[in-house]
């Protein structure tokens, strides 16, 4: 059985970043018409990713996003076009939760 890209992404992020929280949302339909998507038939191209991982600790946003991109390198090669990433450490997530 061929797994959907979302599922593959989930597995990859989970294993490489030891995510304590991971949410992936396919928003490809929102970008279906845009210029850079012409001729792209892959379907699953745009995702929102929210990920909480201890591996982000001490890293600036650029480095955090790079970790995510690195984990998904194969997907980016094969038609994944863009990600919207929220990358937090467990501590930061606790602070957010405490505020609520």
């Amino acid at each position: 059985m061929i797994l959907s890209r979302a599922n593959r992404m989930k597995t990859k992020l989970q294993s490489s970043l030891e995510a304590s929280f991971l949410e992936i949302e396919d928003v490809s339909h929102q970008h279906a018409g845009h210029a850079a998507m012409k001729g792209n038939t892959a379907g699953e191209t745009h995702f929102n990713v929210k990920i909480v991982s201890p591996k982000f600790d001490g890293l600036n946003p650029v480095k955090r996003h790079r970790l995510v991109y690195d984990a998904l390198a194969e997907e980016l090669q094969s038609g994944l076009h863009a990600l919207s990433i929220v990358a937090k450490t467990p501590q930061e997530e606790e602070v957010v939760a405490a505020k609520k």
Partner: protein
Amino acid sequence: MATINLSSLQTSPSLHFLSLCSSQNTPTLSFYSHSKPFPTFSLKPFTATVKFKPRSFVIPAAFKPLAETELVTVPLTENEFNSKMPSDCGIYAVYDKNNDLQFIGISRNIGASVFSHLKSVPELCNSVKVGVVDEPDKASLTEAWKSWMEEHIKATGKVPPGNESGNVTWVRQPPKKKADLRLTPGRHVQLAVPLEELIDQLVKENKVVAFIKGSRSAPMCGFSQRVIGILESEGVDYESVDVLDEEYNSGLRETLKKYSNWPTFPQIFMNGELVGGCDILTSMHEKAGIVVHMFLFAILNLTVMPTSSSWSNPPFLGAKNCGMPLALVDARIASPYRGQLEDRKKLDVNIFLLVFRSVCKTLLEARLCSGAKRLIHVVA
């Protein structure tokens, strides 16, 4: 033929009812407001001994004729300014030191308009007459403005110099959009240096560079558009490069991905370093204002930075006690840079503080971001 320059209150004015009189030397008139477009209206020439036709418009009674309005000397302190200059809709007349009327303007926020005049042409702003218009629709405002203009023209036979055509002293010019940068002279031109080097030069020579899809005036992807929007709203002077331009930036997309080790677009560089894409820029914008981030980047790129021990040494201790550098480090905006801050070798504290204060002050004066206000508060 006389013309009127209207920087209108709304984007597409239809002020054809404005059959304003003008003298024989056919001056043209302009009035000030905040929005960008400057449509031009043609008016019939008119004799200088002005007689006004009765109008169907009812002029709201909340403002007095120009001659009866109190002349207020422009206050210099901010508090006074805020209390004396209403932030209401209305009209205002600016006088110079010799009490010569320089300009009659119309505004959605009189205080803000006068403030911006005061900043751009302080030598011409000595005192101001203000007329608040109760019904702030376009027609009432324009009528009010006209009545003052007519009164002045009637009394002096002259149009206020600032309202003459071609005089742009009082009118905020729409920011000119820069052109997108091109990396190469064209697809078929053999490059003398590798593309990668061109990118490297570009991002190092310019403070802020945004690699976007489409041009800055017509971005072709939502993320690029948001990035442009944020940079513009922060008033950042930036360069843009269209990665989809196959003619002049051929091969840029793949090369840039490798150069920056970043697989998607847009990409924003500040001081030669990748800041990130749309997500990161958006969160910077929300947290503190990009300008503060730019400043932090600038500090981080200084060769002189405090060691961790110097934070607790005088005179840095004083700074620490007043919230600095904790302000920097703990204002959350800086937390990702904590490590970098402490890595740096040495700092001339006084220079650092001087620079920091002056940057914050500049930011604050330019009203560029609330983050600066917070920062200056702790250092001032």
